[in-house]
């Protein structure tokens, strides 16, 4: 009886133990995965490996250079080996994760008869035009025509002439006829390199364009200022011209902004169409005043604004300008300020207390302000309000120069002996556009790759964020566009590279700023557990306790067994 009872007891204990284990097993095998699955946030697959590849960027920029020798520069002996090509590569490691490689592929040939004819034009500008008619060089390439040392095409002291397109004329340095071709070319190389660094990208520009990725330690102050001044790369820009008339009682101002935009600004914008979409509008603001009171200077009997106070001018005016209601592109503001009759004339002085000849200043990435004095256009007895026509050619000249700065068309400082043809009615030479394209493509690639890598990092770190299919698709398309942009740069197709880099930047920004990323971002853990505790605590405590008991019993039994065997 007793034995039976003990046996039953042991059996009963065993059963209890098994039941506890079974329940624990069910909770672990079914309960936890079920809970996990039902409370999981949806996270679509992202190409993390490709993104991490983009994190370390190796850019290769390829430039096609063509060096054409005209008649009289080389001896027939030297010409024998033509056509000839030569590849020159330079490598720069900008920082640990960013490397640059420039590949210059130079092809040498002699001029065709038609090109010889073109080079026989009386002036360099005409030669440039006829050469352009002969063949359209592709975007990003450079053609250098080497003309004889004695050619009359260029003035005496001019060594190199850079045209409106992608061609340059280079006066050949004196060659000895006894030189081999190799010696001639190596002699020429320095000059060609100078031409190329003027007409195509320079290392400084490219590093400045990489400023989104790279710390700006190695960049010179000047190219840094250039890149800080230029407005960030964006798919579109709004250009707004505002005429500020603080005194409509005495001045009735008329400006033919429509005609001026059509003749001065539009050609430049048409030329820049591959880079971004531009829209231009204008408004007249009455009773709009500057934020600072100009100081009266007795010595010149005029009001002056010092350079230090200029930074306070913009903010009060900006409240009146209004933002563009119809788009979210960055706005470039150009203000024409006509001072009221009591504060005229008004002059802007620079840091060295000299009057600025254009009477204008610009604010980086914001726009420009020009002061237009009208006090000399009417006498004191003139009937108010005075009708005044604004000389738009003068105004637009200043605004156009400022616009070029804002858009990042850098000042080029050609070496001595270089002559740059002025860009003409388009406001921008082809090679200037190429320079802009190079740095914009690199900038876009740098920005897009930073955006994508930081987005990937963010999504990786915060597990709460829902990644829906739309975002995943944007990220993948950004990654593919980035890869194609890098590949096109490598192949030297500048136009395509810019196109792809713009797509990449658009897709990456769209993914980064997608509002759906924010939905569950602020779902705090403490609140989650406050809700779970009433269920989890009573369920888990018995399981854990019985598991502990089982373990301790098993240990005890083993100890007993050991003691018995001893």
């Amino acid at each position, binding site marked *: 009886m007793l034995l039976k009872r003990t046996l039953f007891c042991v059996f009963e204990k065993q059963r*209890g133990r098994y039941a506890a284990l079974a329940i624990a097993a069910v909770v672990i095998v079914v309960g936890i995965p079920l809970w996990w699955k039902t409370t999981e946030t949806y996270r679509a697959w992202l190409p993390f490996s490709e993104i991490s590849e983009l994190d370390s960027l190796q850019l290769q920029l390829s430039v096609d250079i063509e060096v054409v020798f005209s008649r009289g520069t080389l001896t027939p002996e030297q010409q024998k080996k033509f056509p000839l090509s030569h590849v020159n590569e330079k490598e720069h490691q900008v920082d640990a994760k960013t490397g640059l490689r420039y590949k210059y592929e130079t092809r040498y040939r002699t001029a065709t008869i038609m090109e010889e004819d073109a080079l026989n034009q009386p002036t360099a500008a005409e030669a440039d035009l006829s050469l352009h008619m002969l063949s359209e060089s592709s975007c990003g390439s450079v053609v250098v025509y080497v003309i004889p040392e004695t050619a009359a095409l260029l003035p005496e002291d001019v060594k190199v002439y850079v045209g409106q397109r992608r061609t340059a004329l280079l006066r050949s340095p004196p060659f000895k006829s006894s030189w081999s071709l190799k010696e001639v070319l190596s002699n020429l190389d320095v000059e060609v390199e100078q031409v190329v660094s003027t007409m195509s990208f320079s290392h400084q520009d490219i590093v400045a364009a990489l400023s989104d990725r790279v710390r700006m330690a190695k960049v010179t102050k000047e190219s840094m200022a250039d890149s800080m001044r230029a407005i960030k790369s964006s798919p579109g820009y709004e250009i707004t011209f505002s005429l500020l008339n603080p005194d409509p009682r005495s001045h009735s101002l008329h*400006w*033919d902004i429509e005609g001026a935009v059509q003749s001065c600004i539009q050609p430049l914008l048409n030329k820049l169409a591959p880079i971004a979409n531009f829209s231009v*509008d204008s408004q007249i603001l009455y009773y709009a005043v500057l934020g600072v009171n100009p100081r009266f200077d007795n010595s010149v009997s005029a009001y002056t604004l010092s350079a230090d106070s200029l*930074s306070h001018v913009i903010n009060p005016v900006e409240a009146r300008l209004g933002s563009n209601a119809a788009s979210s592109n960055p706005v470039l503001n150009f203000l024409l300020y006509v001072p009221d009759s009591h504060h005229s004339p008004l002059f802007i002085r620079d840091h060295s207390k000299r009057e600025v000849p254009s009477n204008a200043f610009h604010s980086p990435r914001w726009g420009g302000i020009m002061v237009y004095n009208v006090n000399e256009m009417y006498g004191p007895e003139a009937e108010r309000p005075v009708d005044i026509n604004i000389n738009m*050619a003068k105004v637009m000249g200043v605004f*156009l120069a400022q616009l070029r700065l804002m858009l990042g068309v850098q000042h080029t400082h050609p070496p001595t002996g270089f002559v740059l043809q002025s860009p003409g009615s388009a406001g921008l030479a082809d090679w200037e556009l190429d320079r802009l394209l190079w740095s914009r493509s690199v900038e876009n690639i740098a920005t897009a790759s930073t955006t994508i890598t930081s987005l990937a990092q963010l999504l990786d770190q915060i597990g709460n964020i829902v990644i829906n299919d739309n975002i995943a698709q944007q990220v993948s398309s950004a990654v593919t566009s980035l890869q194609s942009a890098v590949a096109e740069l490598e192949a030297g197709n500048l136009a395509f590279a810019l196109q792809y880099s713009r797509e990449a930047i658009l897709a990456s920004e769209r993914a980064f700023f997608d509002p759906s990323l924010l939905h569950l971002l602020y779902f705090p853990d403490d609140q989650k557990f406050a809700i779970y505790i009433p*269920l989890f605590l009573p369920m888990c405590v018995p399981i854990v306790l019985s598991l502990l008991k089982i373990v301790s019993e098993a240990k005890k039994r083993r100890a007993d067994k050991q003691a018995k065997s001893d």
Partner: protein
Amino acid sequence: SRGAEGAAAPPVFTWLSDGTKDSESFTAAARDQFQEELVIRPLHSGDIYASFQFRTLWDTDFLQERQKVSHYRLFPKSLGQVLSKFSVRELHISFTQGFWRTMQWGQPFIPSPPGAELWVWFHDTVSDVDGNWKELTNVLSGIFCASLNFIDLTNTVQPSASFKPLGLGNATDHRFLRYATLPREIVCTENLTPWKKLLPCGSKAGLSVLLKSEKLFHSSFHSQAVHIRPVCQDEQCTSKAWELRQTLNVVFDLYTSGQGKKEWSLFKMFSRTLTEACPLATSSKVYVDITDNPEVKLKQQTVVLGDRRTYSVFDLTRAEMFGQLRSLNLLLRDMLRPLLHAERYVAGFGLQTGEIHTVIYNNHPYRAFPVLLMDSVPWYLQLYIHTLTVTSKSRDNKPSYIHYQPAKDRHRPHLLEMLIQLPPHSMTEVTVQFERALLKWTEYTPDPNHGFYVGSSVVSALVPSMVAMNTNFTQDQPLFSSFVPVKEESSYFVRVYTEPLLVNLPTPDFSMPYNVICLTCTVVAVGYGSFYNLLTRTFQVDEPSLPLAKRLANLIRRIRGVPLLA
């Protein structure tokens, strides 16, 4: 930080000659004009009604296909961009604080419901009207600093007859019309500032000097509106122009705040006086209603809203006018009772059902006239349209036209439009029963016990006039009488807004979800606990103890020395 730097003009752009475009710029400048006007009318109740109207007329076309309008002078750029981007044909927006008491104050010049009202006719080339509407409300909410972004499909209706375009063009397809009200919108300084910014003179000169927010909002009624529509340029209507009317109506309670004296002055009302007209305005006039005080000079008679009134006119563009507007004593006779009047209330008890009563009064002694009643009721009041009754003079009055669009839960509101004939000198009552819906807990407002607003009903009618209306447009009319064109002499158009309704909905206890979670979890935990105990406890067969009676018996037996019971 903003640096400043002089920018020199490149010498290239000097070919643009100075004088060629002058004639063009002058004609372009004359294409827009600005008028301003203030009407002051002492009201029967002792209050003063001041109504500002600013009108900008621009002969241009925002909806041109080929050429974008982008150069603005007097017309505000932000609104112009909105018009062309969203292909808006007509836009009416009003912000009102307080309720216009028709019975005490008569008819306002331009009526508006409490809160915000927006109605827009889109051009018939728009394909995605709902998308445009959504984006437009968002942009307008940015421009006017108002919560118009809360307008969505659940509170937007397309009235079939009540809101016809007020400008040129006879659009009948109400698919391109959107109407929404936000009865809860609170109007304050932050809405006034952007509204003032749209004026060419801002608040610097002209009548807008008077618009000081601390006085304007210290009033019984305040309403500001923007109306944009295409109108005829001249009486022959050969060319189209765009008209922007900015109106601001305010009713000051000077009687109680002025120690019971019935007198007013500009300074008392606005704490400012007028010093000059806006130099950009072609006309700048102040009209003072002196119908009841006929001794004042400078009269002009105008018929407006079926009532012949006499006004004293002060033309601010003439300098000799200043100093004439002084404090005026008032003498008031009985006013003309408004011929059309409407009010509305909710009847019923409990939180399940209710009844909306709309009462429309025809105060004309002998003429019957039809009115259009429009009701837009949110979906959470489920209307029982079979209970709709219209009674006048305790007899059933069958509407001759009913347009009813039932609501869809969470998608669109009810829209009820009826054409009702009002018998002379009668009261017509429209009742409809509704049931209150239970909302989802996230759909409640932050203060759900305050109740839910239902926008005003709109009663539109051509009211027979007691005096002959002026249908002649050639005469230079004051702005306040020319907003709605009068088509016939015997009647005039009136729109009356009823009070908005405040309806209580059944409101749950918002800590409920957490309570439910806790309760469910506790129940689950208790059930699980017992189950777990049952499964894992070890059961032991216990020696059954003797019942209490037997044990007592044994105790006695032991004392007595008798053998114990088993």
